């Protein structure tokens, strides 16, 4: 059985002065039945990659296969089998939610009832409202309803939960989970690490148009060497070198960014007392201290030395 998505040496360069190399040789294989996440900072090339996979943009070079088919020859069949929610889906203002979903349903040979799709994203109460009257999160849910109404085998969701309240987000997670449990494939992008960890079977961390890490969330975190993070800052913001903490017991790596120190540690109960001693020796006092489990965010910071959210 061919993979749901195969993409080899994908390159996309937008012409201009200077030209923008949005995607620079990206390789991915997404298996059927998988929920796959693309993580990366703003401008990493996630949307561009997704739109090429969705057949909305042409790659500059590289090979793309969707469900074993290619866009050049089988575009119409591919479109019947995929569902899409764009990063920003624009729909006609003066149509109601039900009218929009019904119209999208009519484009697909098979699918679920329009009302069923609306119910799955919990928009029943708004079924008769005009699109223009919906809140940002409700519009996002409508976009997802349009994506699933054709009962696709492969679902592309570009930042589906951005702007949703916690409850709607959990609802959408449930939709995605049940979709995947039915043996279908989901590819999504997100800026929320907790979301990726909870939802995705595998994630690819993308930066500057390339995959810089690939694996299950647990694998990637384990690759840090330590499962825990100690973060602290010091009174008076002294210019201390992070290196002096990296040799403390159980500390795997140390870094400092704008006065915020971060240590990746294996065993916090060994590292913490040693850290206190070190600070006392340096004559410094703590302003803040925080220990937590490592997340995908730390994976990114560790790989690039930058934060995920504000990496530009």
């Amino acid at each position, binding site marked *: 059985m061919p993979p749901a998505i195969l993409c080899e040496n994908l390159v996309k360069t937008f012409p201009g002065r200077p030209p923008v190399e949005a995607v620079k040789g990206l390789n991915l294989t997404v298996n059927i039945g998988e929920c796959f996440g693309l993580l990366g900072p703003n401008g990493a090339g996630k949307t561009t990659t997704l739109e090429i996979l969705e057949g909305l943009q042409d790659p500059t070079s590289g090979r793309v296969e969707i469900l074993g088919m290619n866009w050049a020859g089988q575009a119409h069949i591919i479109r019947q089998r995929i569902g899409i929610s*764009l990063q920003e889906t*624009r729909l006609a203002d003066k149509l109601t939610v039900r009218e929009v979903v019904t119209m999208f349903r009519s*484009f697909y040979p098979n699918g679920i009832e329009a009302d069923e799709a609306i119910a799955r994203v919990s928009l029943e109460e708004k079924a008769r409202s005009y699109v223009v009257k919906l809140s940002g999160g409700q519009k996002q849910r409508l976009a997802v309803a*349009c994506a699933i109404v054709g009962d696709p085998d492969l679902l592309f969701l570009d930042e589906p939960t951005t702007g949703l309240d916690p409850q709607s987000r959990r609802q959408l997670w449930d939709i995605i989970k049940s979709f995947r449990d039915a043996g279908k494939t989901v590819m999504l992008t997100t800026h929320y690490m907790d979301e990726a960890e909870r939802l995705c079977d595998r994630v690819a961390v993308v930066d500057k148009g390339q995959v810089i890490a690939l694996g299950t969330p647990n694998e990637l975190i384990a690759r840090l060497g330590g499962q825990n993070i100690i973060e602290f800052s010091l009174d008076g913001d002294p210019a201390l070198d992070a290196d002096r903490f990296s040799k403390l017991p159980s500390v795997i790596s140390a870094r400092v960014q704008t006065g915020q120190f971060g240590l990746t540690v294996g065993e916090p109960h060994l590292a913490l007392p040693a850290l206190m001693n070190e600070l006392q020796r340096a004559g410094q006092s703590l302003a803040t201290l925080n220990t937590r489990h490592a997340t995908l965010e730390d994976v990114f910071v560790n790989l690039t030395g930058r934060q995920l959210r504000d990496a530009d």
Partner: protein
Amino acid sequence: MFRYSPLFQLMMARLREFYREPAAVFWVYCFPLLMAMALGIAFRDRPIERITVDIREDAGSSEAITKLKATLAADERLEVKGVTGDEWRKRLRSGKTSLAIVATDKGIELWDEPNRPESVLARHAVEAVVYKQVSKEPAVDEHHLDETGSRYIDFLLPGLLGMNLMGGGLWGVGYVLADMRVRKLLKRFLATPMKRRDFLLSIMFSRMLFTVPEVCALLLFGYVMFDVKNAGSVFSLLTLIILGAASFSGLGLLVASRAKTIETVSGLMNLVMLPMYIVSGVFFSSERFPEAVQPIIQALPLTAMNDALRGVMLEGKTLMEVRGEIFVLAGWGFVPFIIALKIFRWR
């Protein structure tokens, strides 16, 4: 049955978006009527002006005068007034009358005021009446071309219909598409298995659904206000209107197929429409242009539309008799549609 038909759903979406926008409804339906009303009033036929003619009753034989008065009164342009003495001189000088008739021994004297056109007109009219009385050869039979069907408004209304069909088709389609492209509404459609043909057809059909009633309202208005009648069959007229709406929507699809902004599309529209407003015989016959450019003018869709509409409405022609125009119109609808389908920009 239609519930999940893409063409039906797309058309319904267009119709709903249209009637949920009251301003659009106003402009589409009221504007052409207001324009027709203004033009109709401007070009309305003026009632015939009557010219006053004085006749002196106290000179010459009263028998001859009575006879002359009766003859002149038969001409509906003349208002004959009997006067006595030299009263007619004062009246002619002050413009109260345009002509004075004074009988003498030798015959009659006609007094006019050569600087006033209506005075000269009255003179010719009276002369004509008098001489016709004298000489019966050759027999002159007078006819007046003022029955319905040959007035200017009768000529103008089919031209207005054609103009509205063109404007409605091109603007209606062009504006909607450019607007959808600017608002990036088309991109989401591209990501579905929706057939592109269905989308373009839905735009065309929904446009026809707006234009046909609009044009029929104009027809009804012409009938009620100006008594403009259709000499041909209602079926032929309706067929032409539907065909014209389809043809100009097809052209509209092509004009808007790549434009990225409303401004571009407006410019293109004007480029296409302005020459046709002038040469295609909306306000005056296109045959007034030189022979050399006639083949081009005749091949334009608006010329074909106007000629066909006038053929049916004024001359009572059948569809068979205007098949040349029908062929031109169908070509202008079909070929641009196919090209638009090929080159359409979805983003």
